[in-house]
């Protein structure tokens, strides 16, 4: 071997090793089964490992893992360019907020062009619900939080109603076990919340609390809570689902008609325990978001390092807001977006045309709240212009069928190459294997998305990658026919074939790039694998097989080549 061959061999070896290393997470992720997931539920270290593999594995497109792709159009008619782009970013913000509810692991929401938004929700289960939520316009409202007396009253009423509804069966409900501390108005409730009662106590408490106080055993109701979040009720994270269920039942009818319960938007832990506030407030909003004209975050004038949000209202809004705030100084005013409370500041003084919300906001929190206020102030019309949803079962079928078809095709090619070209065919097959390895590793490494047409593209390049080898092998055959030695034939074969291979592949690559530009979703996946495949197959045919064949003929002066 001469120096350049040694270098080339080294390069190939490094590439193959890198590819194997890059594909390791994909392999491990594909081995994760239900049993392993069950173990991971109790073993955070294992869960972290699985998450790590998944993050580095080849990403599956929506058509393979199931999910939803949406193109939304925002009606920006009559807006200036700056207004339109502001409107677009606000709608993106609203959507991000709403999409959080779906429990989708990697939602992708981004603006496209001047008035469109692309939403991708991989693994989404309920397409109908997602569409109705995404398609509705944002509802920003200011509502007065009801005073402590009302909260205590409603909590008692709910306890009574739920107790009757559940009957004696409720006494066995274990979910109530942790709730002995939270008697309404209990002064020590904040102090020793995290403490766990002993087992016997817990059982008794479950019987007593679940039976006597189905609501207040799950929800902390306390007058002192308001200073932490503007509300008198707090639901620890583990009880949120249960409370949501209770409140959606018939018992909620005991809530007086002019009041409404809403959960807080963000999880808080005001005294070490994570959970969300539950707000009892006026059913009629004091003010709706369309009266807001601007909202910006500014450094707090009184507390250095902290931030506040300034907002202003239109004329009618100023009049209404003046009346509300003037008559309710000291009460809390909840800012609610799409039925969830973002913040509930206290009314310090009467506010008319402009006001500010202060608190110990960080810069990020303040700009988040300001954006939310502006988002809700925007009554724009959003329409679903394009939708493509694939159910998870179809995605699984597609993977299975695509892979089966591909492997059968590839196997036929392999057999054919070996039968037709014998030893040299074997070298070509080796090149194919390396080619696929590098292709897959490239997908994983650059986070490119594999789609069903993409799988077709991979196997199609197997068919086409053979081409470069066929070109070379046919050339070598021709040269052998002219009575050249094996060595000379290999040299001449590569020399003549290289130009052809490059010219023919560049033209195909042109088409690949056009496809990449034209296609979205699954088609883009096809363009990606096709383009990568062209490049890697050129490399394996021109470098890898050459090194092997040259090494074979060079070591033996009179080597013969069966081809």
């Amino acid at each position, binding site marked *: 071997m001469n120096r350049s061959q040694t270098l080339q061999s080294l390069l190939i070896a490094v590439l193959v090793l890198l590819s194997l290393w890059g594909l390791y997470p994909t392999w491990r992720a594909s081995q994760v089964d239900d049993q392993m997931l069950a173990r991971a539920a109790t073993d955070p270290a294992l869960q972290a490992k699985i998450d790590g593999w998944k993050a580095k594995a080849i990403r599956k497109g929506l058509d393979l893992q199931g999910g939803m792709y949406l*193109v939304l159009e925002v009606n920006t008619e009559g807006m200036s360019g700056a207004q339109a782009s502001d409107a677009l970013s606000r709608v993106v913000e609203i959507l991000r907020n709403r999409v959080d509810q779906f429990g989708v692991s990697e939602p992708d929401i981004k603006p496209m062009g001047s008035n469109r938004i692309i939403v991708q929700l991989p693994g989404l289960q309920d*397409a*109908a619900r997602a*569409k*109705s939520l995404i*398609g509705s316009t944002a509802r920003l409202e200011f509502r007065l939080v009801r005073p402590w007396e009302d909260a205590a009253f409603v909590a008692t009423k709910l306890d009574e109603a739920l107790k009757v509804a559940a009957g004696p069966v409720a006494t066995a409900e274990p979910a109530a076990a942790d709730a002995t501390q939270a008697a309404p108005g209990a002064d020590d409730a904040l102090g020793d919340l995290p403490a766990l009662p002993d087992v016997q106590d817990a059982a008794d408490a479950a019987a007593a609390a679940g039976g006597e106080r189905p609501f207040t055993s799950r929800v902390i109701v306390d007058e002192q809570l308001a200073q932490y979040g503007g509300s008198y009720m707090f639901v620890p994270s583990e009880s949120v689902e249960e409370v949501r269920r209770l409140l959606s039942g018939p018992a909620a009818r005991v809530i007086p008609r002019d009041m409404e319960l809403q959960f807080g938007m963000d999880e808080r832990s005001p005294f070490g325990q994570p959970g969300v506030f539950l707000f009892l407030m006026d059913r009629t909003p004091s003010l709706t978001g369309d009266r807001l004209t601007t909202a910006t975050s500014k450094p707090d004038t009184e507390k250095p390092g902290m931030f506040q949000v300034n907002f202003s209202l239109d004329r009618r809004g100023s009049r209404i807001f003046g009346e509300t705030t003037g008559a309710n100084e000291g009460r809390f005013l909840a800012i609610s977006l799409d039925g969830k409370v973002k913040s509930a500041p206290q009314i310090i003084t009467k506010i008319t045309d402009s006001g500010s919300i202060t608190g110990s906001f960080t810069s990020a929190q303040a700009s988040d709240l300001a954006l939310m206020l502006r988002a809700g102030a925007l009554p724009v019309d959003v329409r*679903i*212009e*394009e*939708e*493509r*949803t694939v*159910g998870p*079962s*179809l995605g699984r079928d*597609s993977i299975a*069928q*695509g892979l*089966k*078809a*591909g492997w*059968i*095709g*590839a196997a*036929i*090619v392999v057999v*054919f*190459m070996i039968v*037709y070209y014998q030893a040299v065919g074997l070298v070509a097959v080796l090149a194919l294997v390396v080619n696929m390895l590098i292709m897959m590793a490239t997908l994983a490494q650059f986070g490119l998305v594999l789609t*069903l*047409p993409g799988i*077709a593209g991979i*196997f*199609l390049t*197997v*068919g*086409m990658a*053979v*081409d470069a080898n*066929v*070109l070379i092998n*046919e050339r070598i*055959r021709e040269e052998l026919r002219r009575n050249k030695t094996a060595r000379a034939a290999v040299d001449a074969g590569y020399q003549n074939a290289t130009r*052809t291979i490059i*010219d*023919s592949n560049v*033209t*195909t690559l*042109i*088409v*690949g790039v*056009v*496809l990449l*530009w*034209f296609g979205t979703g*699954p*088609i883009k996946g*096809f*363009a990606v694998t*096709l383009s990568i495949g062209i490049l890697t197959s050129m490399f394996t045919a021109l470098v890898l097989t050459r090194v092997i064949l040259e090494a074979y003929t060079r070591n033996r002066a009179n080597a013969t080549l069966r081809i």
Partner: protein
Amino acid sequence: MQFFKQTNVRFSELFRYALVLSGLLILAGVVSLVAHGGPRLSIDFTGGTVLQVKMAPAPDIGRVRSLLESGGYPGVQVQDFGSADEFLITFTGISRSSSELDTAGAMKAVLEQGLPGTAVEMRREESVGPKIGGELKTAAFNSMVAALGLIIIYVSVRFIFKYGVAAVIALAHDVTITLGLFSLLNKEVSLSIIAAFLTIIGYSINDTIVVFDRIRENMKLRKRGESYAAVVDRSINETLSRTVITSLTTVMVSAMLYYFGGPVIHDFTFALTFGIVIGTYSSIFVAAPILVWWHEKRVADPRRREAM
């Protein structure tokens, strides 16, 4: 093993038959396209809604159709898809409740109401508004033009202009015939079929370049008195083995993808398989004859005699 041992087919004498064959294929396709008023476009381009549903127990297809027809979706199309319990439902009209946000969901609800006891699983739903449909149509057209234009430029730079023209005529030939076949078989042209067309272009040009490259090489080694047609013949013969084997391996893969790859990519892989065959044919029987014809016309003109 070898399929071809130094063949010596006089392709230039077969060109006129090829002309007839290509002409007939194109004519059949064009007649069908004209008769149908253009290609049958999918909802990707016309706008509309497609649902792929799986129903257990499988209902009668006519029942599904009549339910949807009377449920507010006149002109709805229902077809079997892959297996007996799976249906593809296409609706491109305007539903009676035209303001509904979720047409697919509403159609599913109609089926669930009309067929009590039947589980309706939504396997896939696609919905495209007319505006985006129009844009996708333009994008599809532009992408084809861009692909062909870039190929002419590249081939003209690497070879000479007439090679570029000959190559692009061959590509247009391939796409026209495949499009015609889709019209004859009443298959829909969707976004993925456009992608298949582009792939056919990519494949066919690859094949054509290999033949052209050999013609260019052989022109330099041209023997005294050898006609241009003879050089082309020799070049095609020399590359014949490669042309056939590459097509064979690629067709084998795409045919397997067609048979086993599932109904979602059925039409896509069908177009690919057919396109690869027609693309191979066109490299030999369309692109090469144009070169010969062009050359002879120039040589016949005494003022413009030149080597190539």
